[in-house]
């Protein structure tokens, strides 16, 4: 028993001793899944660091340097909330941002609303964040799942395909992505039929079995939401077994460098995908970013790099507009905030706090032994979003 107290006492001492801090920088609390999803989080972090360097080189915000405190949430929402509290109350962060996992994003969002902290969800894709579980304190940068799925549905509706198969990881994001595709496609082309829906467990795909099950349903086209190692296995088995021959395939996020690059020369050809064709960006702010990023890191950018970079830009613009780091000022400045980014000007919508960052949609091809997107276009999201009334009816009363 004795040891209990000694330890508690020691722990309490250690914690309170390090609590002092100086306040000559503006600190932003950044929480992410750095360890277990390092493949996605690291380019994002590098994007942030590039953004910070540029912001601070031009004098920071409100005359002070901008600083991000990066913390690892271990992939646990409960842990993320503890860290969020620590960032806000001990480390002197003025607002929270980050997270790639939707569930962590949702947890922080709920926490931010309860405690009255501003939270910019940089990467999580779940639509619930801004719609069904939306709240006044939460804003989101990245293009929503719904919009990207709607863009793919639009492309799909233009073909003769009537029988669709879907495959998506069996968790909330996958479910949202399939639902959004179905809703949008049915709206455009009511006669389509979904002949099978496959739900492999996230990162535990049994690709051979999935391919067989889809093949057995004899679809005209396939809608894919798998990503990461699941996607690699699915593509390999599907290619080997001829699943993709003479079929249209629509891949949500499949064109993002994070997922396309590891496939190397086995990247599928002719899939219609959303992604980020950094290698093909015309001159302008988009290319400037790519060049700056390559120069800074020696690596080619991922979509995460872009999101990280735009997160810094958004926050810098937000604080500048608010003229203060007080929560009330930030909250007042956020709706309608306009930000100049590599993708052009985006704004944070008043109705659902979602940014107007758009998406690239194009077709996959092989070039020099690597998968790329060709014939791509960049589309603004607003045309694909539900109407303001629909959104208002989804968002909880405030």
């Amino acid at each position, binding site marked *: 028993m004795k040891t209990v107290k000694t330890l508690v006492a020691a722990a309490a001492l250690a914690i309170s001793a390090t609590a002092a801090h100086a306040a000559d920088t503006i600190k932003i609390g950044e929480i992410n899944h750095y360890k277990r999803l390092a493949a996605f989080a690291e380019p994002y972090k590098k994007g942030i660091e590039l953004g910070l360097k540029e912001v601070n080189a031009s004098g920071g915000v409100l005359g002070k340097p901008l600083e991000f405190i990066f913390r690892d949430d271990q992939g646990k*929402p409960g842990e993320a909330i503890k860290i969020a509290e*620590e960032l806000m109350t001990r480390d002197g962060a003025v607002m929270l941002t980050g997270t790639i996992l939707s569930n962590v994003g949702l947890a922080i969002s709920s926490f931010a609303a309860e405690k009255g902290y501003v939270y910019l969800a940089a990467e999580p894709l779940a639509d619930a964040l801004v719609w069904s*579980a939306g709240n006044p304190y939460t804003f989101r940068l990245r293009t929503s799942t719904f919009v990207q799925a709607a863009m793919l549905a639009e492309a799909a509706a233009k073909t003769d395909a009537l029988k669709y198969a879907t495959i998506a990881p069996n968790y909330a994001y996958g479910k949202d992505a399939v639902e959004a595709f179905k809703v949008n496609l049915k709206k455009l082309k009511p006669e389509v039929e979904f002949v099978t829906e496959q739900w492999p467990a996230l990162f535990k795909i049994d690709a051979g079995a999935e391919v067989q099950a889809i093949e057995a349903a004899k679809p005209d086209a396939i809608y894919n939401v798998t990503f990461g190692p699941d996607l690699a296995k699915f593509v390999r088995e599907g290619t080997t077994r001829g699943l993709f021959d003479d079929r249209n395939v629509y891949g949500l996020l499949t064109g993002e460098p994070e997922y396309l690059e590891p496939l190397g020369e086995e990247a599928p050809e002719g899939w219609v995908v959303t992604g980020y064709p950094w290698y093909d960006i015309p001159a302008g702010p988009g290319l400037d970013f790519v060049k700056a990023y390559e120069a800074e890191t020696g690596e080619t950018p991922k979509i995460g790099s872009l999101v990280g970079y735009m997160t810094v830009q958004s926050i810098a613009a937000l604080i500048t507009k608010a003229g203060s780091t007080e929560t009330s000022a930030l909250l007042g400045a956020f709706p309608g905030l306009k930000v100049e980014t590599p993708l052009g000007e985006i704004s944070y919508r008043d109705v659902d706090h979602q940014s107007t960052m758009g998406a690239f949609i194009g077709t996959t091809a092989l070039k020099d032994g690597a998968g790329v997107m060709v014939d791509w276009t960049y589309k603004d999201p607003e045309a694909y979003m539900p109407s303001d009334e629909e959104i208002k009816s989804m968002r909880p009363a405030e």
Partner: protein
Amino acid sequence: MGLFVAQLLTGLANAAALFLVASGLSLIFGVTRIVNFAHGSLYMLGAYVGLTLMNTLPGAFGFWGSIVLAGLVVGLIGILIEICVLRPIYRAPELFQLVATFGVILVIQDLALMIWGAEDRLGPRAPGLKSVVRILGEPVPQYDLALIAITPFILFALWWFITRTRIGILVRAATQDREMVGALGVNQSWLFTGVFFLGAALAGLGGAIQLPKGGADLLMDLNIISAVFVVVVIGGMGSIPGAFIASVLISVLNVFGVAYIPQSTLVLIYVVMAVVLTVRPYGLLGREEKAGEHGQVGEVERPIRPVGTRGRAFVFVLLVVLACVPFVGSSFLQVLITDILIFCLFAASLQFILSSGGLVSFGHAVFFGGGAYAAALLVTYADTPMELALLCAPLGAGLLALGIGWFCIRLSGVYFAMLTLAFSQLVWSLVYQWGAVTGGDDGLVNIWPSAWLSGTTAYYYFTLAVGVGGILVLRHIIHSPFGYTLRATRDSARQAEATGIDVKRVQWLAFALAGTMAGLAGGLFVFSKGSIFPNELEIGKSFDALIVVFLGGVKTLSGGVVGAVFMESIKDWLTRLEYWRLILGLVIIGVVIIAPDGIVGSLRKLGERIGLLKEQESMR
């Protein structure tokens, strides 16, 4: 028909890697009694090493050579782990070694990240086996056929090795009585090391051989380990043919599950596991395990007494200090202590059933998460006020524990542990895949306390009262007749039965009580975080609790609480560092080696040696 055959073949091909890893785990467990949690990490290393070698060595020879070499390299890594980490602690209490293997997982995770980087790697295809063969019109990849051909060969080789060679006989003899094997002139240390080499090499082989069907990524380790446990348990711990049958069974079932119930593949596997264990408690080919058959090593637990006046004064002072925290500490400190208190209550509930009851549960988080979900579901769907929902958390978890306990309590030892794991994973997969009700992975959010408790400080005091209260209640129960009865069933079930004690009933109620307390902790948790997600009842959460109990000291009363405080505090500090998992892993391994009796047990011994504590009467 064609499709059916093709599906069967896919299942058989998928069984290959699973069987290799599972047979390695089973072999190691069979001989050393170590439940090697780090086996998935060896599988991951096999994949990375194989990939690196394949990129260096050209052609078909290079490909197959790389697979064999990867096995050998991982086998050598296994030897390193065995000699550096496990050898020093073979004499520690039973199952203590699993804490060390957990440390190994953390270390390997960070090392792999350092060496191979964060990006997923796609495995190369097998030279000459890149296309498909048409069987009854269905395409079957050539490599699948190769795997189907190789696996029985490995099974046969292992079987031959175990049953027909002298070393195999020695291995089986050592499984039963290590000391005796040594007394007959066999160097058991090297036998163990050899077995560890073989088991690790099999895992490495599994990792390398699956490369053409997948690749290498940093999530492989934990992704395969639960499937491997399922296979080993269904097949029967220590049985290699059992591991084979179970990997085929699970893989084939999975293929058909994908085709016919694509939404519930996870649930399917755990249902199969629960059913098999309920019908055949020791797995398909496992043997009945008598508790203590393999010699529960380590000292006997000492007689207990409630703490004296000095101890009570100490607790009182501690409580006063904790009560003063809001006046001096930051709001974060309150949040941190709230977290720690909740975890302490959770760990104490596991310690109750594990130490006093001798029932090692590998799935205790199901009651923590179960309680949290009970409360969260009530709030979400019935707008239940927080006070009532919080009351329902322990009740819900207690009911769940009564249900799960009814099945599990019939077994003992490692099989009990594995059945609790199966049920907790079953509940987890239900919560995870039944999104319509539980929100699945997106969890249930906006579960906040009532206004009077919504402030950080108010909730801090509330947790302090309920959490410490819960821990004290558990402690008192250990000293009550029921606690003594529970310890009696642990010390000698036979004697207990022969003196009027209904052993299973006592264990069942204790299990339910522990579940209830874990549920209370879960209830406190959900209202402190405002949300609940499936990861709170996942295998990892159960391991967290197990580790702190072992780290604190199994054969003590306060081990769980001390371990929880220790672990949460150093985690809070370490997670700020870049390679914190590496450091945490090393810290865990270090503590395990330095303090084989756990922190409390070792401090107590130290105290006795330097004369601070009264020494216990020694034998004779």
